[in-house]
Each structure stands twice: as C-alpha cells, then as structure tokens.
C-alpha cells in the first residue's frame, strides 16, 4: 500500500471537518474491507484517510420514534445478530449475514457497504424494500433522504466528499412487515452475488391477494434498484404461480444486467425471475398463519 496520512476522528463534526480540509484527497475509512483492498490493488490512492470508527453518533442500533435506526458503523455481524433487526427487519439481518465470511462481517460496516455503491452489495435490497431513509452528516449539518437516492451509479454515491452516512432508518410503519432476502452466488460462502433480491409483501386479510409488494434487486443494474413495474403489477393481483412468474418477468425488465465473466446478462435476467418469485414466496411463508 502506498503511503497516506491518517487521522482518527472522535466526533462527526471533526470527521467532516477533516474530510473537507483535505478534500479531494481524503477518504473516510471504517471497516476498511473494501477500501483497503482497492488501495492494495492500486486502484485508488487517497493521500489522507479519516478513520471514523470512533465517531459516537454513527454507532448503535436503536428503536426511535421514527423507526429502527442502524448506525452506519454497525458491523454486518452486529446487524445479523441484533435481536431488534431480527425481529423488525429479518431480511436486513439475513442480508448482512450473507456478506463475505465471519471475518469480513466482523470488520465490514453496514454504512461502508452502502456508500461503496457497488451494484452487488448485499445490504441494499432488503433496506430498499423497507423504504429505509439515509441520514447524512455534513459540514452543514444533517440531511435525510430515501436510501434509493444514495445510489447514483457503480461506485458512485450522492454524498459530497465531506459528507458521511450517519445511519439508516427503517420507518416505523414498515417494521415487522413480512420480508425475505435471497442471494445467488457461484459459491456458498465468500461470494459476490450474481443477483440478490428482497421483497416486502402485504396482502389482504384473507391472504388471497397481494395488496402491496415492494421488490428490490442487486447486481443487475448500475445501482441496487426497486423493481417498480413488477411491484405495480402485483398490487391487487391474486396470489398465484402465474402471477409470480409474470412478476419475475417484469422485474427482469426493470433491470439492466450486464454480461461479464461471472455470468451473462441473459442468465442474470433469468435469475431475477427465479429470485423474485422465491423472495415473494419466502415473505409469504414468514407471515403468521391466517
């Protein structure tokens, strides 16, 4: 690794001040599982790293009036093991549990994963279907916006160089809703998703029709996406195999997968169909019996 200057920030203000001072040569570092690999591979050479690990504002998982707040510095291991997350957003816990391996999950943070804006990040789809909000801290204070707006393109977020993701908030009205996350990789562990998907499913009380379904996909477009066409189609439709098949087809149309050495776009589109159906079925299966 090439030489860089290192600062450890102990408050959010200090962190963003340092980032601003050394902009554009400074990057924040938290878990480092993504950043340090890219530095070692000679892909990026920040002159300054601002370590935000000890920023208190970005820690912890808490139930607030707004909803379930997960600090950006919470590790994947902590998300996956958190009783609160497991109770109120099980798909989010499952997604964090699917990242890398034990070692990666102990270092890597939820926030770091999200702001990397790699299309295949595992933590995004489950948060997207729960309509999570991003809380961002900058020199001008906090701003909050839907998490979808964080993702601009591959490895490109909507944050300015002196802004940091503080937390994500899963709104109160979505807590405990039936969700499911599924990841398809070429290996059972330590794997990058070819496609990942999440669903949040609401039905009529009789459990015969979908009332509202939210679907999100990863690794199949420049950013993690919501499959809006498929969602619109599902609203009000009967819960039936042919409906799920059509939803899968529409979700594939919502995506823009690419050909690469891991898989063809065509295969990824096919997987979207399969995973879409599986996450909807998974969410339905997790519902209490009628």
């Amino acid at each position, binding site marked *: 690794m090439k030489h860089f200057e290192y600062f450890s920030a102990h408050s959010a203000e200090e962190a963003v001040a340092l980032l601003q001072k050394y902009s554009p040569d400074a990057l924040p570092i938290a878990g480092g599982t993504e950043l340090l690999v890219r530095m070692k591979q000679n892909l990026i050479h920040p002159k300054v790293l601002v370590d935000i690990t000890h920023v208190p504002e970005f820690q912890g998982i808490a139930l607030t009036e707004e909803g379930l707040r997960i600090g950006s510095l919470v590790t994947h291991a902590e998300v996956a093991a958190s009783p609160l997350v497991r109770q109120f957003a099980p798909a989010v816990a499952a997604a964090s549990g699917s990242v890398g391996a034990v070692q990666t999950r102990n270092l890597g943070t939820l926030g770091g994963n999200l702001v990397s804006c790699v299309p295949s990040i595992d933590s995004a789809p489950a948060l997207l279907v729960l309509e999570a909000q991003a809380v961002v801290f900058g020199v001008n204070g906090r701003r909050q916006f839907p998490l979808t707006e964080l993702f601009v393109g591959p490895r490109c977020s909507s944050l300015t160089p002196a802004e940091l993701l503080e937390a994500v908030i899963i709104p109160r009205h979505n807590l405990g809703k039936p969700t499911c996350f599924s990841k*398809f990789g*070429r290996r059972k*562990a330590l794997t*990058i998703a070819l496609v990942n998907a999440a669903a949040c499913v609401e039905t009529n009380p009789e459990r015969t029709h979908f009332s509202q379904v939210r679907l999100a996909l990863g690794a199949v477009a420049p950013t993690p996406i919501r499959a809006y066409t498929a969602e619109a189609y599902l609203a009000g439709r009967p819960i039936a195999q042919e409906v799920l098949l059509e939803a899968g087809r529409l979700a594939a149309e919502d995506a823009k997968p690419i050909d690469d*050495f*891991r898989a063809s776009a065509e*295969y990824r589109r*096919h*997987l979207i169909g*399969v995973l879409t159906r599986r996450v909807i079925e998974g969410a339905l299966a997790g519902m209490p019996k009628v």
Partner: protein
Amino acid sequence: MKKRGRGIACMWYPIGFTVSANPSAAVVKVNEDGTATVLTGTVEIGQGSLTVLAQIAAEELGISPRDVIMVSADTDGTPVDTGAIASRTTYVTGNAIRLAAKEAKKILFEVAAPMLGVRTDQLETRQGRIWVIDFPQKNISIGEVAYYSQVKLGRPVQGSASWNPPTVPLDPQTGQGKPFNTYVYATQIAEVEVDTETGQVDVLRIVAAHDCGTPINPMLVEGQIQGGISMGVGFALSEEMVFSSNGTLLTSSLSNYLIPTTVDMPEIEVIIVDNYDPTGPFGAKGVGEPTLVPTAAAILNAIYDAVGVRLYSLPATPEKVLKALREKEAQNNTASSTH
C-alpha cells in the same frame, strides 16, 4: 425443482515419471542410542511424506517411527531426489530409504551375530531390539549394537542406496513401451442435487475407493483423498481462469477464482481397498495425484443422471447447466411437435 442423481467414474494413474529417469537416493544412519537418522532430498509439501518415509525406515529397522530423525531438502546435505512430484515419494523415495535401511541393518546383524552367538540369518529386528528368531530370550538392543559397532569396532552403522523405477521408452511411431513401473486405480461415486430453476449443482456425497497398494499411514492417505476431492469439486463446478480478448486474466484473485469453502464440500467417505504391490516399499504405491482425477467426471455423470443433460465442458457452472437444460427442453418440444 431439485433433482438428485448419482455418477460413477474410475481411473488409473501411474506412479513416477513418464519414461525418464527419476531416481531417489537415501542415507540411513543408526545412532548409538538406537535411533536412526534418514537423509533424503525430497521436500515435504504438506502431504506427510517425511512421516511416511520415517515409518518405512522404522519398519525396516524394527524401531519406532518416533525414533527416526528426518533430515531433508538441502542440496548440500541430503542425497539426490527427483522431488515431490508424480506421486512418487512413497514409492520411489520409500524404496530408496528401505534399501538404505537394509544396508544399515546388514551391518547391525553382522555385528550382533557374534555377540549373540548365532548366524546373521537367524536374526530379526523388532521393538528396537535384535532377536534370535524363535529364541526370544536371546536379544540385544539396537543401540547397544550400534554403539559397539561404531565405538569398539570402528564401523558406523550406516547404509546408503538409490532407486529408480525401471521403464522402457516408448517407440516414437507406435508409442509401445513401458512408460511407468506401476499404476494405482480408483473409483469415486458422487451424489448431486441439481436445481432445475437455476442450474445450481450441490454435491451431497462422494464415496471414494482408492488403491494405493499398502497404505503406510491410512490417516494420511484419507487426508490426501479428501483434499484431492475438494480440488476435484472446484475443477468440476467453479474454478476457471477467464481471460479477456487481449489476454488479461479476469479472475486473478481469490474473490473471483472460486475454490471450494467448507460449506461447498460434501460428506466424503473414503475406502482404501486392500492391495499390495511387490515392487513398492512394504507393498505401497502412492496416492497424491489420483485423488482428484475421477471427481469431476463422477459429478458430471451425476448431473446427467439427475437431469439428463451432458455437459461437454468444465466447469459445470449453474449458467451452463441451465443452458443445457433449456436446450434439452427445446429439443423435446420440437420432437414432440413433429411426431
């Protein structure tokens, strides 16, 4: 839908180099305390060769393998060895060490015979002692004999030997000849589950029956077989170096060149079949390489058994399996519509 299938594959594999000379030499010294030091030019690469070679020396000398000191892999200090390649160490280096130990034992017997008042052909070694056959009350420790031989007679107890497997070069036109001195055989059977929606293949179980002649150390043989199978599973399903059109390797890290992890590996049941090769040390041949040879074929045959598609190229990625399934469906549909 998930479908299960079983596949069998067998193989043969030679021990030692293809035609060319591949000698091993060894020195075995019996120390004054009854232990032995073995000098070998082979390199321990993790397979446990030094342990196995110590067992061979110990068996020939009649001492405990714990009492064998192995000195290896230094061109200044150890005799020539062609190296840990071609599954040859147990067989070729093992033969050399056994022969060297025999030389040392010959000195021990020549020295011990008058001490015990018998002929050399009446002696045997066991448990660190030299015994008069059929007269267990007459015996002497190897250390005592080695000490006496070295210190009193001025004759250190040491043997050296080399061995090279005999081969006959192949005729350049017909390829007729004897390229290797011996071969091992194996059969592996795989059980797989294929997800017909995604093409994903799960290997559930592998039964591996291997011939390695006499297993000098069955635990290490099992380890070789289990490890070889994991390499075979990777070869069958996930490992592939992929290049871009300008020759850039796209899979140059362990995050995209996928070797099996703990959760990718099936249950493995190992059977070491009873066999004996008179040309090997104590009947042993070898086991290193053959362990992965039939694995991919067994898995691909199991995929065929499960879903009826034959894959003609490795690795059997989910995408390839699914594509083959789709092509088969399309064929079936055409067939049914034309009939």
